[in-house]
């Protein structure tokens, strides 16, 4: 029996499966966080507690568009390297990093201008902890794609060898999609 020696990609790659399973673990983590939010929310008589404002929908909405939108240049970058277009990959990654940094800036502004802190009632604890947990993951995603960017300058990726890009992109999309769940629960549900 003979076997061809090509780079296994996508679901033929053990690395891809490793990332997919890591994402499953992370999804469970965020799912647990959301569940804890809902648990405490439904035990509280008023939510947010008196004196605490609802989260800012405008800022949150802009942040959402920026972050979820950043998946598009990543997708574009992925398609590029599949065709061997390294330059396209680099541009796509660079754009998504900028968008993610803008997202983080908005988050930072929200933290700084909030009238409450994580010590203010369980509401504050949940709000800041869950947002920070996600924010850390955005930073992680930025680090991953920056590292992919650096590797591309070392000539590591071409049309036949780029499973690391697929894997990194998978993580990026996960971080964006999980934001949708967090946004809905943290920003929209106090208004229900």
């Amino acid at each position, binding site marked *: 029996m003979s076997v061809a*020696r090509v780079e296994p990609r996508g679901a033929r790659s053990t690395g891809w*499966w490793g990332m997919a399973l890591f994402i*499953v*673990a992370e999804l469970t983590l965020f799912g647990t966080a959301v569940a804890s939010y809902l648990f405490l929310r439904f035990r509280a008589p008023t939510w947010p507690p008196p004196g605490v404002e609802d989260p800012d929908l405008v800022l949150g909405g802009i942040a959402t568009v920026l972050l979820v939108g950043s998946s598009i240049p990543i997708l574009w970058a992925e398609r590029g390297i599949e065709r061997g277009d390294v330059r396209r990959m680099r541009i796509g990654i660079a754009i998504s990093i900028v968008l993610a940094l803008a997202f983080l800036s908005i988050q930072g502004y929200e933290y700084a201008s909030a009238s409450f802190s994580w010590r203010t009632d369980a509401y504050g*604890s949940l709000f800041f902890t869950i947002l920070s947990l996600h924010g850390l993951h955005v930073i992680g995603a930025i680090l991953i794609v920056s590292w992919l960017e650096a590797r591309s300058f070392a000539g590591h990726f071409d049309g036949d060898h780029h499973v690391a890009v697929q894997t990194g992109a998978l993580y990026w999309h996960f971080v964006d999609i999980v934001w949708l769940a967090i946004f809905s629960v943290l920003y929209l549900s106090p208004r229900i």
Partner: protein
Amino acid sequence: MATATEERLEEIWGEEPGPVSWFTTGDHKRIGRRYIVTALVFFLLGGIEAAFMRWQLAQPGSTHLTPEQYDELFSMHGTTMIFLFITPLFTGLANYLVPLMIGTRDMAFPRLNAFSYWIFLGAGIFLYAGFVVGAAPNGGWFAYPPLTGPIFDPGINMDIWSLGLIFLSISTTAGAINLIVTILKLRAPGMSLARMPLYVWAMFVTAWMMVLAMPPLTYANVLLQLDRNLGTNFFDPTAGGDPLLWQHLFWLFGHPDVYIIFLPAVGIVSTVIPTFSRRPIVGYPYVALATVLTGIIAFGVWVHHMFATGLPSLGLTFFAAASMIITIPSGVQVFAWLATIVRGRRPAFTTPFLFAIGFIVVFVIGGVTGVMFASVPFDQGVTDSYFVVAHFHYVLFGGAVFPMFAGLHYWFPKITGRTYSETLGRWSFWLIFAGFNVTFFPMHIMGLLGMPRRVYTYSPDLGVEGLNLLSSVGAAVLTIGIALVAINAIKSLIAGSKATANPWGAATLEWATTSPPAHYGFASIPIVHGRDPLWEQPDLGSDLTLTHGREILGTTITDADPEEPLPMPEGSVLPLVTALGFAAVFVSLLVGSVPAALVSTLLTLGLIGAWTWTLGGVPG
């Protein structure tokens, strides 16, 4: 006389003995052995903690231990046995066996495997550092706030516990991911999922459960750290929090965890019993399905640990029903083993087989008391008493440690290349079986007489002093039995006769290698046509030797059709150094130094970048 292929493979896969390869190896066999030895050291430590507890409780009003010491001992006993002993031991055994059983040469991610071990070792040391600084965890292994919150447990004890467990969860999750990918992608050609050994099924489901159960625990520990150190209010009822949030999160992890402990044991028993009954297991598809169903239902019963907390009874009824239903898959497994014994040839009463039988007896007792606990009013009567201590020792010791002994004896020849003494093995089995039952059966009675758990002493008025003394005597007998196992192992390692490749005449692929296996495992990747390859196929060889470089074969997920060869990395010191980086992060967090935490985080991220620099791109 090694063939040319074997010499070539030894060149590619061989490792020079010595400190360099010891610190850089990614060989699943070496890492598996390491895990097992380290886990057994923690078994010893956990046992010493138990011995101290039984010494204190042998008589009412003892003053051998202060209340603080007792609280630290029982907290560390539970934490050690569950987190540092049994699961790492089964992980190590799986590390060793799974690649061999599925006919490949290593785990999917060898360096991640090494890393998982170093993290486990580091987390174990981290947790035990508490004893060294006189502040061992003292809030129980379950750590309920507000008791473990900042007001009532202000010392560093529970910070060591929660940070230590977050640290450990990195190892558990990485190990689980490694196992799943290995089992999905590296099985020998022809080993479809339906032909996979039941031990591999068990580890597969266990690994999935780890991936899904660790996050709630990690999240809970993060919240506890935040409440303790940053003034958040997750568990403070005066500020919108709820102590029950912890309980839900903890038991969302905690109940699946008992099946994470139990399922590998089931896999071992499903291997040992057919071997010594000289026939394939009866009802393989049912046992595989039962394993999967147990894993799924395990996530739906956690509230049965909270029946006394005052939750609404509609919810309690649902969880009572689910907790009863989960016995059905276990029942299927028990009867599959019984049917295999009944319909098998005259059984060979070897030490592994004795421990497997002992397991059935003890586990069924634990299982029936478990079903009793599913009945809410009964649970509300005897939970938090010694009755539940009896129950869970029957299912954990009986359900996991007996199979562990069975497995360790069964695979001892393969792993060490030596034969153990059957006489010593039999003596140790009977002493352990008798000692275990004398220690733990009286605890059922003690609970029914009203003795609560987690108490450093008890009143003579309760009428339990005789039973406590009896239990402590039993513990002494149990200790002697376990000591005999250790003596057997050491004697055999030094002077046991050499083992053949397949001393038991067993069916699974690991027995097709030498004892112990060569560094490369299989000289050629076997091609499998059935569930019991060594019984069905006398000649397993193929021409898939993969001597091009350090390679294993990737196959498809369901049917294991060959895909591409997968290059495997050489040994590296990066797993160890990266683990040290993580350790530095956790120590920084423990002592509360933000600069140290930041620096060690950056360092660790850099190391991860270096490690992954060559992955998933143009080779070379």
